[in-house]
């Protein structure tokens, strides 16, 4: 092991471990947040109308929701503890502030989510139909609340507020909890993440329903689900894009280097154009580029001729302020993750808009090309969510807490062998789980829900698991 690890630092391994476990965890979490809300909507429709088709849609997507939920939960346990394992110096530095939302998330959100989901899974026929519907709404509320606290913790790393540095211990200590929870970065980031989660759930709902509609399975149930999917995809895409755009402008004032790196903009420019595509390298002398005039200035400053700061100037400013060192993140990674995220967001907006247009024309179920497109678009939000987080986290480097603590000073003082062991271990477990989960998901997603006899629908199932 040690020979293999020669030259690989604890820092590098710990960063890879955080990237692997967090990206994996966040494949499942947005689908959990989105689908719990959508299943709640489907079940409420079933409860209100008494229509068996809504009932079947609820059971079908409820089953897929639970398979996904389980992985989100168990990979979340790792998130709660790996700050202490791999980032102990970070944990000591930020614990006063960062720990509080994490603890509150558990108390307010995780208990609610897990307890009421237990009631929902096992409660059919044991609690009244009204309480059963209420339980999925409360589970959904739990997921929405949990996102609030974890995003508040992340927003503090992006833009620290409400703190002071203890001169004796050199820890960041909280001076204003309200400021932490109303951080301007948090408000936009939370909205963006939440809408993206609803978008993930809705694109999944629409895509799976579209797959069945194209094959003529249970059109009554799947047409209903597809319509809910279209409406939510459209609303959520608009919300995600609008808030993402506001975040861009905020980033220009709070983390200008992230914006400059996203654009590979080396020198401060007024009336800056937006690069759609670059071939060659991103060093400032590309071989081939497609650029749209003025758009970068509009994105970053909301004005036609606004000035956008360049990497060279920002690096010089940062050296003056924080001392020698590189303050430039990995430019190619930021450039491409940003473009993939934005591109997929626009595609999803198109999915919602075309879907709505077809719905108005009453041709949604008879448009095989749209249905095929919708089925493929299931993948889009997962990719966009991942690259979005990679963009914002890598873009903050070299800082782990912006302007206060560098990532290289945050890592635990432990042997790289330990981190390598757990990195390999988690990667192996997660890979196996991903294969099993995707296979199971596809298997279950392909079988339409069979109707229940009235007797079955009334009775409580004796063995659920």
């Amino acid at each position, binding site marked *: 092991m040690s020979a293999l690890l020669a030259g690989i630092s604890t820092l590098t391994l710990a960063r890879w471990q955080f990237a692997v476990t967090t990206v994996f965890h966040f494949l499942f979490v947005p689908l959990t947040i989105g689908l719990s809300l959508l299943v709640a909507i489907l079940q409420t429709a079933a409860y209100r109308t008494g229509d068996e088709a809504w009932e079947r849609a609820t059971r079908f997507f409820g089953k897929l929701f*639970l398979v996904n939920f389980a992985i989100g*939960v168990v990979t979340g346990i790792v998130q709660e503890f790996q700050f202490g394992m791999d980032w*102990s110096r970070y944990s000591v530095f930020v*614990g006063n502030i960062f*720990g509080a939302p*994490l603890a509150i998330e558990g108390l307010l959100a995780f*208990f*609610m989510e897990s307890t009421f989901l237990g009631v929902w899974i096992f409660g059919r026929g044991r609690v009244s139909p009204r309480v059963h519907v209420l339980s999925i709404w409360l589970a959904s509320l739990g997921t929405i609340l949990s996102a609030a606290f974890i995003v508040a913790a992340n927003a503090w790393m992006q833009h620290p507020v409400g703190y002071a540095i203890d001169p004796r211990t050199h820890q960041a200590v909280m001076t204003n909890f309200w400021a932490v929870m109303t951080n301007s970065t948090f408000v936009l980031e939370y909205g963006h993440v939440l809408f993206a989660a609803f978008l993930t759930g809705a694109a999944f709902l629409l895509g799976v329903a579209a797959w069945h509609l194209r094959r003529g399975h249970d059109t009554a149930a799947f047409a209903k689900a597809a319509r809910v999917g279209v409406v939510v995809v459209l609303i959520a895409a608009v919300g995600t894009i609008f808030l993402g755009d506001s975040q861009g402008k905020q980033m220009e004032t709070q983390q200008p280097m992230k914006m400059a790196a996203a654009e590979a903009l080396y020198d401060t420019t007024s009336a800056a154009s937006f690069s759609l595509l670059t071939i060659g390298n991103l060093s400032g002398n590309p071989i081939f580029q497609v650029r749209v005039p003025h758009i970068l200035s509009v994105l970053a400053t909301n004005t036609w001729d606004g000035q956008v700061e360049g990497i060279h100037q920002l690096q010089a400013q940062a050296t003056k302020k924080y001392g020698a060192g590189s303050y430039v993140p990995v430019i190619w990674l930021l450039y491409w993750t940003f473009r993939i995220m934005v591109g997929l967001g626009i595609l999803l907006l198109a999915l919602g808009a075309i879907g709505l247009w077809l719905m108005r024309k009453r041709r949604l179920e008879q448009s095989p090309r749209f249905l095929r497109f919708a089925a493929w678009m299931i993948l889009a939000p997962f990719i966009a969510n991942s690259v979005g987080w990679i963009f914002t986290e890598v873009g903050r480097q070299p800082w782990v807490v912006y302007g206060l603590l560098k990532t290289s000073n945050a890592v635990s003082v432990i042997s790289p062998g330990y981190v390598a062991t757990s990195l390999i271990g988690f990667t192996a477990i997660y890979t196996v789980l991903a294969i099993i989960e995707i296979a199971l998901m596809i298997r279950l997603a392909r079988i339409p829900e069979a109707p229940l006899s009235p007797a079955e629908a009334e009775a409580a199932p*004796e063995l659920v*698991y």
Partner: protein
Amino acid sequence: MFAVTASPSGLEQLWFALIGVLWLGYFFLEGFDFGVGVLLPFVARDDVDRRVVINSIGPVWDGNEVWLLVAGGATFAAFPLWYATVFSGFYLALFVVLAALIVRGIAFEFRHRRDDARWRRAWDRAIFWGSALPALLWGVAFADFVHGVPIVAGGAWTGTFFDLVKPYALLGGLATLSLFTLHGATYLGLKAEDPVRENARAVGQRLAPVTFVLVTAFLGWTYLSAHAWHHVGLVPPLLPILAVGVLAAVGWLIGERMEGWAFVATAFVVLALFTTLLLDLYPNVLVSSVRTSYDLSIVASASHPYTLKVMSWVALIFTPFVLVYQGWTYWVFKKRVGRPGRVEQPTEA
């Protein structure tokens, strides 16, 4: 170090106590979940019985596990240095616990999704090992907290993985593994119908004396080791003596089919065992095996009063709701779980 001599403030004491309560809640609740998982191969003879066993904790295991997440989060917020030192120091052990909890949680949700004997057998193994390993390792970890780990000033770790697996800690691990399993047996006695109920009774009766020996030895060693003599609450050692006394009665209670009392008894022993360890630990959060002056104290690891005050208000307002609705779910699912009148027999059985 100056921090060792300073005594904790009221707020710091409160948060040490609250985190203690969170761990106690976790071990009381997930203790029987672990026990049920360990007993899975021993109390069920076919797939339907195994499903009865799993369904007995089905609606509640996830909520029970949240106690761990809240304990972890609260430790992070209230005692950052404790959180950072323990989890980076117990690195490999914690990795094993996390991996175990991952496969176990997935197993509950995935096992029933396919009616295939090989698929189900694989998840049954995941449930067994995913329950047994944490049940063992939490005992090892808590024993290490009180008996000392190789830390020097400021919680810096100087040892290796093997410093964590000394005889005392191993005894602690075996004691909790055995106790949680017994706790799971009394839980199944309350929650399952025959034949699982009857099988759990038989296993419980055989396991009770073994658990008695292990827990008595562990508590005795804890008490007789030098540290215990200095600490409040352990002189006189009422709690450990009560724990051992109650544990002595468990076998008899199971034999007399006093299922409710048997469960109360194992719950009491779980709570008393971990309370003893926490009282032994106070006013430290982690003992150094290198030198007493390196002990990590409550005062040295605590957050500032402002954070603790904010957290106290949040806990004060929201904890009652959590207790009420979590308690309510146990009431909703109070019925015993049994073999259904009409369930398709899977291929294997």
